C-alpha cells in the first residue's frame, strides 16, 4: 500500500501529549476515546448476549406456550408449584427487558458509544475528543444503569413489566402488575443513567466534530459515518432531554405521589383512588417525542457505516454524497414531527393523527433516496464480497423491507388493524436487527483491524453472515404475516384466541422460534471469531482494505495520540478508482490529480 505523500505542514504548536501513566488510567479510567469506544463495545456486546437469550425464551413461550423451557427454567423462574412453567408476568418482564436492554444498552451504546467514540476523532483527524474527561464520564455513568437494570430482577416483584414504552397507569400504579411494585423504579433510574450518558456523549461529539477537524477537513469532506454520528448526536441532544423530563415525572408519580399521568380518581387493583387530574396520554406524547427520534438514532449511524463500507468495497465513489447528507438531515428534521404515528389508536385527537400521517409518509422519502443511492454506489463498481460488505448489503436489503413495511403503519386506517400486532414487531426487527445490527456487524468486520490491529477470519465471517442472514429472515419475516392475521404483540399465549389457534399460525410461530434459535446459535461463530482473532488473528497493516478515510492513515491499532502530525485533507473520502491513478484508492491525505474536478452538487 502506498502511504501517499503527506503534505501536511508540521504545525509547531501541535504537540503530542504525555501517555497515560499506569494501567488504571490507561485501560480502565481512560480518557482515550479509543479505549472508551472499546469499553462501550464490550459492555454492549455482553448485554447483546443477555438480551438475545431473553428473546429466545420469549420465542419458546410463543411456540410452545407454558411448556417448561429446557435448561433455563430450572434456575430462573420456575417454582415447583408451576412445574417449570413460565409465569405470565415473567413473560412480560422478558419482553420488557429484552426491548429495554437491546435499545438502551445495546444498539444505542454500540452505535454511538462504541463506533462514535472510536471513529469520530480518527475519521476527522483529531487527537481525541474535545472533552476527554467528560467522555470517560459518559461511559462510567452507564454502569449505574447496567447495575440497576440487572438488580431489578431481584427486587420484590421483579423487573419492570410495563413494556419498554412504560405506559402509565400500568407503569405508575404500584399494584397494577408485579413489576410495577419496585422494578419500574429501577427501570426509570437505569434509563436516566443511560440518558445522561447519551447526552454528555452527544454534546462531546458535536463539539468535537464542529471544532476539532484536522486542516482541510471541511464538513463536506467528512465520511458518511461521521455525518451520521453528527446528526445522531444532534437528535439526541434535542430529543433526549424531553424523555429525561418525562422519566423524572414518572419517577415522581411513583415515588412522590404526583399526578401527571394519573386520571382523576385513578385507581388500579383496588388501591386507594388517587387525586389525579393528569393524563396517561401525556406520557405517550413525551415518550414518543424522544423515542421516535430514537429510532433514527438507532438507524442513522448504521446508514453511515453502510455507506462507507459499500463505497470501499465497491471501489467506487459514493453515489450522491451530498444528497445522502441532505437526506440524513431531512430524516433528522422530519423525525421530530412524526412521533404521533405511534399513537394513532391511543385516543389521540384523530385530526392530529391525520397530520402525523402526512409527515410520517414524507419521512419515508429520504430513506428511499438513501436506498437508491446505495444501489447506485454499487452500480458499475468492482464489488468485493468481504464479510463487512455482505453485512452492509444485507443492511440495504433488509432496510428496504423494514422501510416499506413502515408505510403500512403510516397509513392510519391500515394501522387500525395492524397496530400492536406482530406486524409492528416484524417491522421494528427488520429495521433494528436487519438494519442496525447488520450495520454493527459490518462495522465490526470493517474496523476490527483498526480497533485491535488484527484481522478477523473472513471464512468464519462469511459463514456467520450466511447463517445470520438466513435465520434472520426465517425468524422475522413471518411476523408480518401473523401480524396482519391479527396476532397481538406482548401476549404470553396466542392459543387463547381461536383465530390464533389455527395450524397455520401455530406452525409459523414454531418455525420462527426454531429460526430464532438458529439465529442465536449462529452468533456463537461470531463470538468465537471475535475473541480468537483478538489474540490470534493475522496482524493487519494500517490500511488492510485500501480505504481512503483518515483512520486508515495511521497505525493499527492507532497510538494514543492517533496521528504523528495532524493530517491535511484534500477531498472527500470516496475517491476510489480515480482514472489514471496508480492505485484504485486515493487517501484523503493525497491531493486529487490535476485533471479531476469534483462535481460540486454530488460530491
Amino acid at each position: 500500500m502506498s502511504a501517499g505523500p503527506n503534505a501536511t505542514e508540521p504545525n509547531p504548536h501541535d504537540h503530542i501529549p504525555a501517555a497515560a501513566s499506569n494501567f488504571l488510567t490507561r485501560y480502565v479510567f481512560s480518557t482515550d476515546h479509543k479505549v472508551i469506544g472499546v469499553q462501550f463495545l464490550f459492555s454492549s456486546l455482553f448485554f447483546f448476549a443477555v438480551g438475545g437469550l431473553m428473546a429466545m425464551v420469549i420465542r419458546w413461550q410463543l411456540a410452545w406456550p407454558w411448556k417448561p423451557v429446557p435448561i433455563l427454567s430450572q434456575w430462573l423462574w420456575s417454582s415447583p408449584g408451576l412445574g417449570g412453567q413460565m409465569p405470565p408476568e415473567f413473560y412480560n418482564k422478558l419482553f420488557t427487558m429484552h426491548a429495554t436492554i437491546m435499545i438502551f444498552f445495546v444498539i444505542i451504546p454500540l452505535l454511538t458509544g462504541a463506533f462514535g467514540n472510536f471513529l469520530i476523532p480518527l475519521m476527522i483527524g483529531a487527537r481525541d475528543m474535545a472533552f476527554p474527561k467528560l467522555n470517560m464520564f459518559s461511559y462510567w455513568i452507564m454502569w449505574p444503569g447496567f447495575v440497576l437494570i440487572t438488580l431489578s430482577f431481584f427486587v420484590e416483584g421483579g423487573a419492570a413489566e410495563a413494556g419498554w414504552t412504560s405506559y402509565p397507569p400500568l407503569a405508575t400504579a404500584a399494584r397494577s402488575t408485579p413489576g410495577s411494585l419496585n422494578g419500574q423504579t429501577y427501570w426509570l433510574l437505569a434509563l436516566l443513567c443511560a440518558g445522561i450518558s447519551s447526552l454528555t456523549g452527544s454534546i462531546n461529539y458535536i463539539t468535537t466534530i464542529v471544532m476539532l477537524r484536522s486542516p482541510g477537513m471541511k464538513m463536506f469532506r467528512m465520511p458518511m459515518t461521521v455525518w451520521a454520528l453528527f446528526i445522531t448526536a444532534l437528535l439526541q441532544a434535542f430529543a433526549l432531554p424531553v424523555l429525561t423530563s418525562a422519566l423524572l415525572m414518572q419517577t415522581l408519580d411513583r415515588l412522590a405521589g404526583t399526578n401527571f399521568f394519573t386520571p382523576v380518581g385513578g385507581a388500579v387493583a383496588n388501591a386507594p383512588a388517587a387525586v389525579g387530574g393528569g393524563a396517561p396520554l401525556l406520557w405517550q406524547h413525551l415518550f414518543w417525542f424522544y423515542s421516535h427520534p430514537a429510532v433514527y438514532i438507532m438507524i442513522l449511524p448504521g446508514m453511515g457505516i453502510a455507506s462507507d463500507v459499500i463505497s470501499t468495497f465497491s471501489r467506487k465513489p459514493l453515489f450522491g454524497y451530498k444528497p445522502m447528507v441532505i437526506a440524513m438531515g431531512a430524516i433528522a428534521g422530519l423525525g421530530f414531527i412524526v412521533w404521533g404515528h405511534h399513537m394513532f389508536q391511543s385516543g389521540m385527537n384523530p385530526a392530529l393523527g391525520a397530520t402525523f400521517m402526512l409527515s410520517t409518509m414524507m419521512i419515508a422519502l429520504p430513506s428511499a433516496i438513501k436506498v437508491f443511492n446505495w444501489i447506485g454506489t454499487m452500480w458499475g463498481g468492482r464489488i468485493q464480497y468481504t464479510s463487512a460488505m455482505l453485512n452492509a448489503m444485507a443492511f440495504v436489503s433488509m432496510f428496504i423491507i423494514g422501510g416499506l413495511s413502515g408505510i403500512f403503519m403510516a397509513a392510519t386506517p391500515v394501522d387500525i388493524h395492524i397496530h400492536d400486532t406482530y406486524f409492528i414487531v416484524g417491522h421494528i426487527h427488520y429495521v433494528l436487527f436487519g438494519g442496525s445490527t447488520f450495520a454493527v456487524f459490518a462495522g465490526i468486520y470493517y474496523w476490527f483491524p483498526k480497533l485491535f490491529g488484527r484481522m478477523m477470519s473472513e471464512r468464519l465471517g462469511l459463514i456467520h453472515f450466511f447463517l445470520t442472514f438466513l435465520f434472520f429472515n426465517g425468524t422475522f419475516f413471518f411476523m408480518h404475516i401473523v401480524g396482519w392475521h391479527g396476532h397481538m404483540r406482548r401476549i404470553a399465549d396466542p392459543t387463547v384466541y381461536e383465530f390464533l389457534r389455527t395450524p397455520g399460525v401455530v406452525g409459523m410461530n414454531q418455525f420462527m422460534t426454531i429460526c430464532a434459535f438458529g439465529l442465536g446459535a449462529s452468533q456463537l461463530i461470531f463470538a468465537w471469531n471475535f475473541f480468537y482473532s483478538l489474540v490470534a488473528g493475522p496482524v493487519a497493516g494500517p490500511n488492510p482494505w485500501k480505504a481512503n478515510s483518515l483512520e486508515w492513515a495511521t497505525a493499527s491499532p492507532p497510538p494514543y495520540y492517533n496521528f504523528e502530525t495532524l493530517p491535511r485533507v484534500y477531498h472527500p473520502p470516496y475517491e476510489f478508482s480515480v482514472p489514471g491513478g496508480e492505485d484504485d484508492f486515493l487517501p484523503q491525505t493525497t491531493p486529487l490529480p490535476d485533471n479531476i474536478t469534483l462535481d460540486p452538487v454530488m460530491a
Partner: protein
Amino acid sequence: MAPADAPTHPAAPTHPGDRAHGHPAADASPAPATPGKVAMWLFLATEIMFFTGLIGSYIVCRGGSPPTAYSNLYPPTTPLDRLGDSKGVVLGAPGADPARAAEAIAAATGKGEAAIARVLAAAPHGVVNGLTEEGATKLAEGLNRLGAKAEVVSLKTSSWPRPYDPATNPLSIDLTTVNTFILICSSATMVLAVSAIQRGRKAKCSLYLLATVVLGGVFLGVQVFEYHELLEGRIYPPGISPTGHFRPGVSLFASCFFTVTGFHGLHVAAGVVTLLLVFLASLTGRFSSRNFAAVEYAGLYWHFVDVVWILLFTIVYLV
C-alpha cells in the same frame, strides 16, 4: 431545524487550535468559538428541551384542566356535580375562645376533631364546607356571636388555582416577587463579574462573583423557606388540599408546582456550587483578561437559570 447546515458555517478550514493539548496555533486565524463555548451552548439547548418537557406539560395540564377542577370549598378534583350542599363558611378568625368555635362547627357539621382543627389552623382562610344555605348562615351567625369572624360563601369553581385567591392558591406572590428581584440582581452581578475580568479587574471580578453566590444562596434560602411553609409550616383550606398541607400529591397543580420549581431549584443549587468553585478559583488569580472562559461559561449557565425563572415566575405564580 436544519442539521445539515447547522455546523457548516464557521467551520474555517484553518486549524481551529488543538485545544485539548494547549497552545492554540498562533498563526491560525482566530477561531470563531472555543469548544467550551460550543459545548456550553449545546448544553443550554438541551436544558431548553428539558424545561420544555416540564413547562410544556405544565401548560397543557393547566389548559386542559376541567372548569370545575378547583373550588373554594372542596379539595381539588372533587366531583362537585354530586354535592348538593354548596355553601361554606370562611373563618376569618377563631375569636377569643377557639374551643367554643370548634364546638359550634362540630355541632353544625359533625366533622371530626382533626378536620375542625384544620379549619381553625387555616384561619384567616379556614373553610367549613358541606353546608346548606341555612346551615351556613346559622353557623356563621353562631360563630360571629362567639367573637369569631366568619362569613358565608358560596361555591366558586375554577379550572386552576387563581393567583391572589387564598382559598385555592397557597403561593405567596409578594415573597416570590422579592425573590425574583434577588435572582435578577444576581444575574446582573454575574455579568458585571464577567465584564470585570474581561477588563482584567481581578479583585472586582471576585467581589462580584461572591455577590452572585450570596444572592443565589439567598434565593435558594427563600425557596427552601417557601417549601417549608407549603409542606409543613402552615395549614391550608380544603380548596388547596384535603389534608391541610400543600404537598406534591394533593393536586395536579401541586405536582406541577413542585416539579417545575423543584428542578429549577436544583439547577440554581448546581449553579451556586459551580459559582462558588469559580469564585474560589478566582481568588487564586488564575483568571485574567485573556483567560476567563470558566467565568463566562458559569455566567451563561447562571443567566439561563435566571431566564427560566422569569418564565416560571410568570407562568406558575402570576398567571
